[in-house]
Structures are given as C-alpha cells and as structure tokens.
C-alpha cells in the first residue's frame, strides 16, 4: 500500500476530531514543555555559576599562593623552581596592589594588578568588551586594561570613548609585597587605557609587571599555573605544595558544582516527567477511544484488502504524529516560556543594577533527545491500540451489523 497514503490517512484521521486531537496535544505539550523548561533552567544556572567561577580552562589551571605563611616568599627564584615541575605548561604571575583613582571631584579605591602578560586575563576568563588586551611590547605611556566598573566611574555614558585616553592614579604597594614591610604610595602614575574588560566587581586596573618596577616589589601575590593534562593535577599540586605554597584547583569546585547540578537536574526533570506521564495516559486513552469509534472503518479497510500490518501501521502512525507534533510544539513552548521568564528576571536584575544574564540553556543534544523521547512515547502509546486494531475481525463487525 502507498506509504504516503498511510501518512495522509493518519493525518486526516487526527484532523477529523480536531478538538480531541488538540486537547490530547495540549497534554503532551504541557508535559514536554515542563521538562524542557525545568531542565534548561537547571542547565542554564549551572553554566552561569560555573562560568562565574571559572573560565574555559577550569581543569587546567592551578592557583598558587602563600596562604597565611609569613615565611614563604613567592619571588622569582621560587617561581623558577615551580616552572621546573614536570607537566607544567606555562606560569603567569600577578601582584595585587591597591590604588586610588579620581574623576573630577570624585575619587574611588581601585584594585591594581601587575600581571606578567595579557594571558593572565585570558586565563581568568575576562572578556574584552572594548579595545584590546595588554600588548606584549609597548612604548610610551604604560598600557592598562580597566574593568567595566572602573570605566563606568570614569565615563558612565560612553565607556568606549576611554580607549586611548590617559589615566593617572596613585599606586599603593601593600606591606606584604613591599621590601620595607610597610605600605607605600606612588602618586600620579599615568597609564594609557587600551581596553575595557567586562567585570562588574570593584573598579580594577591591569598592567604589565614591568610597569611597576618603581615600587621595588620583588614578590608576587599569586601564580596561575597551566598544566598540560588534567589527570596530572593532583601530582603537580603536591609538588608545588612541597615548596610551602598553597594551591587551589577550580576543577575540584567545578566538579562539585556539576555533581550538585546533576541531582538538581534530575529532581526538576522528574517534575516535568510527572506531567509527561499524565499526558501519556491521556494520549493512550484518546487513541483507544478513537479505535473503538472506528471499528467499522477498520473492518471495512480489511475487507477491502488492507493487511493487518498496514492497519497496525496506520494507528501507530497516528500515535507517532501526536508524539511528533506534541514534541515540536512542546519544545517551542518550553523555550518560549524560558525566554519570557529570562526577560522578566533580567528586567528586575538590570533595574537593581546587575547585568543581564541567561539562566536558561538549551543544549542541542537535549532538544534532540526530548524530540526523540516524544516520538518514542507516541510509538509506545500506540502499540496497544494498533495491535488491537489489527486483530479486529471484519466478519464480527459485519455480523453485528
């Protein structure tokens, strides 16, 4: 039998009782959209939290510091020893200074970071919003990156106009980094702003370590160590800690967060699943009633030569169509609800001074899996009615007439 005709007949049968089909679809749409909404919410929150904590290199970066030790000094000699540990690809250093910035009659405290290169910012996941990263070589006024908080302080309306401008700040060397053991202020230090990073934490400025030699600082606050292979993280950490240093591995935190969110996803997904099971039962009911109403038609089709297999395929096709349409509309509706919820949330977030974020994430594999599940649900729901239809005896129907 013409397969396209079976598809057409299945589609027409669904259209014959529009209200019944629509109500059945609504049930499936509610179930599917609930699963999509809740799971994508969980995934979105997870991504948001993870990205706030770490950049793309979370599993390859180790933070190294001195912790509370007053004895261990993170100086060039120690850095050189750490560099020799097998499995380490690259090390970036950072020294945390303080600072004061002025804008007309306003002043603010700023964090000043002396970094070994712009690579430190890349590893830290800082996104350049305007301009460019720190140059490797420079001439003239030292180049600096500022964050969006600092940029807003300097020019609330058009921060991008700050690129290329010179900015004078006071640099404060904290006693922990000072060779004299006391805080020291270096006033009127000029920088040229070459870029602005997206970061709404307290106002910050980043510049190459070479631009702070006047401070006499000979120790670093922290190292960022990139390793070649995440499986070596524990070994390398132990070797670093053997020098009296403290290490932090974001990979541990990210792993714990992901464990938590796996459970969170399961719980939310289960709620959605409950709605889907209810919809499934409704669909089963609809298909069974549809069969009982069409017993004569089924008998007629068999009398006119339709094989039992074609009868079964017809009813299965109707069930799969319901699953398919319900799946597509349910996914679209779940994503729409997510967009609406995200928009509302961001409206209030921005009004409160925070930046807009996306708390829903629709992983492509997840959407495909949901669609496949919807098709599968349609198929499974249709098994009983379709088998029952194929067992209709045309003769029993004729005799009853």
């Amino acid at each position: 039998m013409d397969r396209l005709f079976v598809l057409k007949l299945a589609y027409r049968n669904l259209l014959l009782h529009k209200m019944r089909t629509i109500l059945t679809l609504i049930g499936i749409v509610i179930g599917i959209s609930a699963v999509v909404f809740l799971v994508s919410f969980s995934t979105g929150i997870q991504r948001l939290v993870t990205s706030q904590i770490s950049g793309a290199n979370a599993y390859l970066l180790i933070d190294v510091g001195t912790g509370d030790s007053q004895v261990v000094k993170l100086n060039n000699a120690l850095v050189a020893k750490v560099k020799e540990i097998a499995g380490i690809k690259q090390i970036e250093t950072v020294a945390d200074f303080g600072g004061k910035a002025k804008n007309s009659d306003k002043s603010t405290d700023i964090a000043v970071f002396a970094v070994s290169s712009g690579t430190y910012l890349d590893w830290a996941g800082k996104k350049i919003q305007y301009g460019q990263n720190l140059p490797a070589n420079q001439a003239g006024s030292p180049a600096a990156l500022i964050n969006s908080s600092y940029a807003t302080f300097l020019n609330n309306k058009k921060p991008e106009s700050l690129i290329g401008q010179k900015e004078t700040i006071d640099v404060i060397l904290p006693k922990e980094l000072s060779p004299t053991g006391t805080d020291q202020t270096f006033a009127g230090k000029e920088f040229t702003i070459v870029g602005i990073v997206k970061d709404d934490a307290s106002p910050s400025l980043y510049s190459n370590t070479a631009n702070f030699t006047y401070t006499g600082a000979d120790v670093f606050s922290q190292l960022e160590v990139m390793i070649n292979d995440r499986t070596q993280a524990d070994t390398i950490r132990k070797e670093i800690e053997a020098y009296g240093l403290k290490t932090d591995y974001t990979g541990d935190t990210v792993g714990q967060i992901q464990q938590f969110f796996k459970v969170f996803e399961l719980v939310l997904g289960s709620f959605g699943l409950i709605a889907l099971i209810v919809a499934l039962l409704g669909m089963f009911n609809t298909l069974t009633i549809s069969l009982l109403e069409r017993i004569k038609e089924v008998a007629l089709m068999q009398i006119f030569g339709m094989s039992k297999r074609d009868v079964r395929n017809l009813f299965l096709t109707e069930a799969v169509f319901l699953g398919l349409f319900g799946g597509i509309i349910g996914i679209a509706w779940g994503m729409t609800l997510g967009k609406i919820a995200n928009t509302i949330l961001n409206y209030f977030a921005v009004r409160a001074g925070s930046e807009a974020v996306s708390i829903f994430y629709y992983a492509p594999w997840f959407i495909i899996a949901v669609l496949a599940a919807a098709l599968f649900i349609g198929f499974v729901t249709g098994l009983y009615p379709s088998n029952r239809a194929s067992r209709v005896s045309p003769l029993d129907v004729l005799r009853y007439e």
Partner: protein
Amino acid sequence: MAEQEIKHKHDTIIEARNVFKDFFVGKHTINALADVSLEVRAQDFIVVFGPSGCGKSTLLNVLLGLDQPTAGEVIIRDTKIYDLSDDARAKFRVKKIGMVYQMSNWIKSLNMVENVAFPLIVAGTKESHAIKVAHRTLEEIGIDDLSKQPPTQLSGGEQQRAGVARALVTNPHIIIADEPTGNLDSTCSDEIMSLFFSLNKVKKKTIILVTHNQSYWDIGTERIEMKDGRIIKDTAHGLAGS
C-alpha cells in the same frame, strides 16, 4: 424435498464444493451452511434469496473469503482461496471481487472519490492514479459531481451508487452484493438494480446478489433459493427448478 442441480461448465469462475459452515454457541451447534455446492460461470447474474437466517449472507462471506468454511472448498478463478493466508486472501479479494453492502460504510476522513479509490490504493496503485480511475468510475455511474463530498453527507441512493463505484474501481470480474437495496426506497432501489443489470449485460460482470425483494428475483440469469443453510432451488437462465 430439497434438490439442487450442479451444472459443470467450461467457464466456471467461482465454485463452492460441499461447503459446510457451523457456528458454536455455547453447547449448541448452528449449521449455517450444510453441504452447499455452487458453480458460477462468467457473466452469470445470480440472485440469491430466502428467509432470514437461511444462510445467504454466510454463503456470501464464505465466497468472499471472509469466513473459513468448516468443511469444503471455495475456488475462485482456479485459486483455492482458503489455502491462502489472511493477508493474501484479502489482497486476492480486493483485486478479483467488488463488494457492495446494504449499509455503505465509509472512511470518514476521506471524501467520496478517495473512498472509491481506496480499494485500488490498497491493491498497490499510486494514489494519484487511483483517484483518476475513481473519477472515471464515478462518471460512468453518473455521480462524479459529488466526488469531493464526504460520503456520509450524501443521500442513501447516492451512497449506494458510490458503493457500486467503489466495487468497480479495481475492475473486478466478479461483484458480490448483499442486500444492496435493503435501505432504499423503491425508486432508488430500481435505479440500483438497473445499474447491476447494466453492469452484467454491458460490462459483462459476473454478479452474485442477495435480496429479500421478490420483485428482483427474476432480474438475473440464475436464481438460487436457500432455506436452513441449503440450496433448495437453483435455476439457470430463468428456468424454475423442481
């Protein structure tokens, strides 16, 4: 005393040999057909009649391949139809036999021309070609202007005409009709019976038709009277049996 004559002809296309059909209801056995033998030749128009419960419809169902006899054989165009599987027999039936029932049942999601084309589509023809053939058939019957209507919205006579068109769409040699005028008024009934007459005389179709209506008993080439599951009179060419 019941008698039956069996005529052996060279152009026999349907043959029932010593067919028995029993139904079992609890402890009781109902002999719906008892030793029925029948030969149908090409272009015969056989009218079957008898009181209610005499086995007419059972005989038709057995000849159609819908109801396996308890004993005996049915041979249609040299094929022992009950040696075929259910699906093969269904395919055989739709290609060789056109069926018309008292109540025309329709596939409600299809319009009239699609319903008429249905047996052809089931037989393996592409839908577009089957629809063309269905239109031609409806034109011959004289109701092609109603082809886009849902069949259930047509009058009884129009539905029965459409039922005849559906029976003809696969161009079968044989048409089997069970009380095709049972639900129609006399005018419509006469029109339908004229149609069958024309199909036999002009289109050379072989027809087996069951009817209660005595006024149609002599319309065919042969008349078979049944009683209590047996053929009690079987006349050929208008000659009465004894």
